[in-house]
Structure formats: structure tokens, C-alpha cells
């Protein structure tokens, strides 16, 4: 199996059997984002304990890249601090997915990370405002 085939398999596994899929009761924060051009949508739910992401779940619809990436992002986020998550660079996620994506598919891949970070930054601002 080539590297690309292997990476494709991993992503497809996430797509077919997403981790952390489903709604969350009483999340600390939640956010839905979507791309009107291709219809991809992701809703992130986060439960914080102090500064740490204790739990994260998502629901969504869209292509294998956006939904597989959402599953990978939730795995990535669990147990991390808000600061750590805010620092995840788009390229880090793209490398993790590890597939050669064109510019339009990169958008799909990054939607879940953007959603999660936006969700947390919103929370941050709310905290600051308190």
C-alpha cells in the first residue's frame, strides 16, 4: 500500500465511522459553520474543565474530507488546553490528513478546525467579558 492509499484509508475510516459523532448535552460552547459553495457543514460541541477540553463532539454533513477531518480534529482536541488548540496551524492538520488536496478541497479539510477554533475564541471573548 502506498502512503497515499494508506492515508486515504485512514480518512475514509474516519468518514465512515466518525469518532465523537453526535450532539452533546450542556456543552460549554458550540458553533455551527458551513460553506455555502459546497454545502459542507460542521457543528462542534465542547465541554471545558477549567482550561482543558474534557470532551468534544460534532455533527455534520458533507464530503469525506470535511467530515473525516472533523473526526480527526475531535480526536486531536480531546484533553488539550484551549491555548494548545488555538495554536494548531492549518498546515499541521493538512499534514496529518496527509493527502495531496487541491485548494478547494483544502477548504473542506480546514472547516472543522476553523469551526473549533472559532468556537473556542468566542468562548474566550465571553470569558474576558465576564
Amino acid at each position: 500500500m502506498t502512503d497515499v492509499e494508506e492515508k486515504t484509508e485512514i480518512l475514509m475510516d474516519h468518514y465512515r465511522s466518525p469518532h465523537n459523532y453526535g450532539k452533546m448535552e450542556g456543552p460549554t460552547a458550540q458553533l455551527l459553520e458551513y460553506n455555502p459553495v459546497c454545502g459542507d457543514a460542521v457543528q462542534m460541541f465542547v465541554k471545558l474543565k477549567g482550561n482543558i477540553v474534557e470532551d468534544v463532539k460534532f455533527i455534520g454533513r458533507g464530503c469525506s474530507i470535511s467530515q473525516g477531518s472533523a473526526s480527526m480534529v475531535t480526536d486531536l482536541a480531546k484533553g488539550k488546553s484551549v491555548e494548545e488548540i488555538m495554536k494548531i496551524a492549518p498546515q499541521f492538520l493538512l499534514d496529518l490528513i496527509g493527502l495531496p488536496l487541491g485548494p478547494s478541497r483544502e477548504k473542506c479539510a480546514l472547516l472543522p478546525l476553523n469551526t473549533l477554533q472559532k468556537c473556542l475564541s468566542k468562548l474566550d471573548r465571553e470569558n474576558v467579558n465576564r
Partner: protein
Amino acid sequence: MPSWERIKEDFPIFHNLGSGYTYLDSAATSQKPLFVINAISDFYLYHNSNVHRGIYRLSEEATEMYDRSRENVSRFIGSRDPGQIVFVRNATEGLNLLSYTLGREMAQGDEILITIMEHHSNIVPWQFLQDRGIKLVYADIRPDGTLDMDDLQSKMSPRTRIVSVTHVSNVLGTVNPVREIGKMAHDNGSTFIVDGAQSVPHMPVDVEAMGCDFMAFSGHKMLGPTGIGVLYGRKELLERMHPFMGGGEMISEVYRDYSTWAEVPEKFEAGTPDIAGAIGLSAAVDYLRSMGMDNVMKHGRDLIRLTLEMEEEENIPGLVSYGPRDTEIRGPVYSFSIGDISPFSVNQTLSEDGIGVGASIHPHDVASSLDASGIAVRSGHHCAMPLTHRLNTVATTRASYYIYNTEEDVRKLFRSLKRTAEVYSR
């Protein structure tokens, strides 16, 4: 009748990409025969110089080649006079030229009637005029993907200054009855514009018989180079219009505070034109003429007929395709979805049902998966978002054919679609 199996040999890219590669995106842009590529090179190798007013051999040669290209294109679409052929970059520029120049003469409350199946290039230029209180009105389609002629008629008003309609839809493949629409438009006192981007490459088109006032199309979709397109316009209309862009070539005299214009069509061609592009387009026209446009159209119909047959045969779960099933009114374009890919808006809520809706496979995934089998198709809104929404979807996958495609290409498409459906089924 051309030997369709052999035509691929005229297109070196197929040799270069390897026999396993199947190109099904000709509605976006066509491949180019060596004949066209050579015509462009030849110009630069033997005749290159600027056109107009040059009093030396080379410039006269270039001017003559440029003018002959115009005449050739004029004849190809049945225009009586090469003065009716304005060279532009692409269909989009042709339509923008009209929006700017005809728009000058329009007033608040005037209406432009288009259809819901238009390409963005026949929508956005008209939206620009909305600032000035000009209204954009859309005629709807029927469930079978044909234009709703009653709706079109009912939306014509005394204020309808322009009726602008695509000849062939780049998503549905629908061939619109332009002759009839032209008659309706003219009876209503409206100017009639045809977007010929998807018709001129694929079927015999005669602007005089069609009775349109203007028609725009692109060279790159009809075996010609990128960067060249055509706006056909009835001469008396072009003569009356204000120029679009100003500069060299399009003037007769320039003084500090005023200028006078060159005759049409030069009046609309400011600056150094794409000389090599026009010559390349003319070569494409020669190539197509040698095929016979009736044969080209028939070949497209044969492929789309086989496509519709295979669709029924293969019966891929969840596959829905769009556009008329009568191949007499259908261009060689096949758009489809697998499962429900309806638009999502922020007011909606997501369900927990699982990713995707039902057994849907997102068109991006379909395209990626086909690409992996060496098949190039396009996925997305195909520059027709309002239509895509009207079809209650946000993106489709589109396979589109041209003269170099074969029945085997169609079969390969369905074989790969079947495999894709299996891989994605959960």
C-alpha cells in the same frame, strides 16, 4: 462521417496523458488538436507582428490573417458580414460588453429577463445594473429541465429591454428553443441576446436563422485557444452603441478633449488584440467544419443517449440526474447527484442521523474518486449557483463530452461510478 475512434489521435494530449486517461470536462474547456496548436505556433514563427496600419510586409500579413480569421468565424455562425464579429477574451467579456454598453441606455425600472438556468456570466453582469434600479427577472424551468416558456412569456413586460438566454445549459444540457424565444422577445420590443458558449462548439448555429441580436461564445470550449472569444452583434446595433473600452485601434481620431471611433468591429477592439488567439480560433473552426457540425452534434447525442441508457441499466443507488431525457433537445452534458446534497443554510439545524444525508456521496468525493481512476469530471455548482439551488442541491457532478470521447469513455465512467458507490456505501 468522421471516424470517431481515430479522432483522439489528432489530440496529442491524449497520447501524452496515456490511453488510460478519460477527459470528461469539455464543457469547462476542450482539448486542442495539433492543427490548432500548430496554427498558433506558425503565426509566431513566420508572421508575428502587430495588425492595422503597419506599412510593411509582415504587418500586412498579420492583418490579413487576423481579418481572414474574423471572416471565417463569421461564416461559421452564419453571419453575413465579418463586421458583426467582435473578438473578445471569452463569452464572459462579450456579455459584460453588452451589460456596460446597453446598460448605458437603460433607466430605472427597466427589466432584463434571463432564465434560472444561466451561467454566472449571464447573471452577474446584469446584477451590476441593479444599482441603477434596473430589475433582473428570472424565467423558471419545468420539472424535466426544459425552460418554462409560459413563465418566460408571462415575465415579459413593456419594461423588458433585454431578454438574454443561454442556447444550451452547461448543467442540464437543455437546448433552448432560441428561435421561438427570439420571436417572443422581438414581438415584445426587447433586444435578444444568446449565450452560445455551449452551443457553438456542439451544433450547427446560424445567427441569422436564429434571429438573435447578439451572441457570445468562447474559443477555448470549441478546440480553440484560451483568451479568445466572440461577440456577434447585428451591425446596425453595434454601430449605434457606445464603445466599451477605449484606446488604440478602436479610434479614428483622438484630440485632447474628444475622439471619434473607428468603424465596427474595430470600435469594440481596444488595444492590441489577441492576434494569435484569433488565428487559433479560426483553425479550430476549420477543423470543426471538416468534421461537419451535423456530425459533431450527432456524436454528442449518441454519447448522451448511451449515457442515459447506461444510467438505467446500472441503476446506481441514489443516483439522480438532471436535464431532459429527449436527446433531440439535449447537449452532451450529464450532471448528476448520488443521494441528497441539498443546500444548507445557517437557519437549518443539523441532524444526528450520521454524516451525509442517506446514502449520499458528495460530488467532490465522486470527482476525487473518478480522478483516481483517471477520469476527469467536474463537481460543484458549475458557475450556475441559482440553478443548482433551484434543483434543490448545492453541487452536482458533471461529465461532459466532445468529439474525442467514445462510447468506451461512457462505459468507463459508469464502471468507475459503480466502484465509487461501493467504496462509499456504509
